[in-house]
C-alpha cells in the first residue's frame, strides 16, 4: 500500500494501491485538481476514460480534462465551449477584416499603377 495516498484516494477515502490509476496524475500536493475533475466527471468515468487510453497519453488527457472541468466550474452553462464559440467568432470577424484589408491593398496597388502610367504619359 502506498504510504502516501494520491489526491484521488485521499478524496475518496480509500487505500491507494501500488497500481492506482490516478496516482501518477493526482499527487497529494494538489487536492483541488482531483476535487474539480471529480465534481464534473466523477471518479468512475475518469478511471474508465484513463483505462481506455494508452499509458503515454494519459497525462495529457488528465491535463485537458482538468482544464475543461475548471472551465465548467467557472461557467456552468457553457464551460470551455464558450471559449470555442468566442474563438470561432473572432476568427470569422478577423478573416473578414483581412479580406477587406487585402482588397484595399489591391485597390491601392491599382491606383499606384494608374498614377505611374499617367505620369509616364
Amino acid at each position, binding site marked *: 500500500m502506498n504510504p502516501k495516498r494520491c489526491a484521488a484516494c485521499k478524496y475518496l477515502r480509500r487505500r491507494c494501491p501500488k497500481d492506482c490509476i490516478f496516482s501518477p496524475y493526482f499527487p497529494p500536493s494538489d487536492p483541488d485538481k482531483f476535487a474539480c475533475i471529480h465534481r464534473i466527471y466523477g471518479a468512475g468515468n475518469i478511471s474508465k476514460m484513463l483505462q481506455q487510453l494508452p499509458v503515454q497519453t494519459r497525462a495529457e488527457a488528465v491535463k485537458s480534462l482538468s482544464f475543461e472541468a475548471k472551465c465548467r466550474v467557472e461557467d456552468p*452553462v457553457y464551460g470551455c465551449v464558450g471559449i470555442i*464559440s468566442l474563438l470561432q467568432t473572432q476568427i470569422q470577424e478577423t478573416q473578414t477584416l483581412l479580406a477587406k484589408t487585402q482588397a484595399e491593398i489591391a485597390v491601392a496597388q491599382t491606383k499606384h499603377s494608374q498614377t505611374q502610367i499617367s505620369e509616364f504619359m
Partner: protein
Amino acid sequence: MRGHEPRSSSSCAACKLLKRRCTPTCIFAPHFRSSDQITFAKVHKVFGASNVSKLLSEVPEEQRQETVNSLAYEADVRLKDPVYGCIGAIASLQKKMLELQHDIAVARNRLLAHNASGVNNNNNHVLSTLDDSPQLAAFLDLVPYSDLMLLDGSGLDAYLYDIGPPPFV
C-alpha cells in the same frame, strides 16, 4: 389497486437509458427527448447522469437548454478525441488565430509601405481600417489562455480537424 405516481406518457431519453420511470418533474425530460437517445448516451458516457443532473439543478431553468447543448457538444468532441477533447479544438483555433495575426501584420506592413512611398492619397482611410477596428484591437491581444501552455503540445499539431460551430452560435 395501489396508487402510484402518474407516469409520463413517454419516457425521456435519459430515463429510457437509465431504465427508470420518467416522472413529470424529471429534470432531464425537457432537454433529452425520447426521439434523440444518442445525445443523452454521449453525455452520460462522458459526464454521468448524476453529474449532469447536479449541473442542471445548479443553473437557472431558463439556461438549462444551453447547458445541455454545451455538455452535448463537449461530450461529442471528447468521444471523438479522448486525449485532448475540446482543448484540441481550442488549440487548433488558437493556431489559426496566430496565423491570421501574422497575415494581418503582413497586410499592415504593406499598407504602411504604401503610405511611406506617398502614392496613396487615401492613406488615412486605409490605415483607419486597421487602427479603428475594434475587432483587430481585440484580436491583436492574444487570447490569454495561459493554462493551455500546460499542454506540451507535442500531439496537438495533429488535431487540426474542423469542428462544427457550437449549437448556440
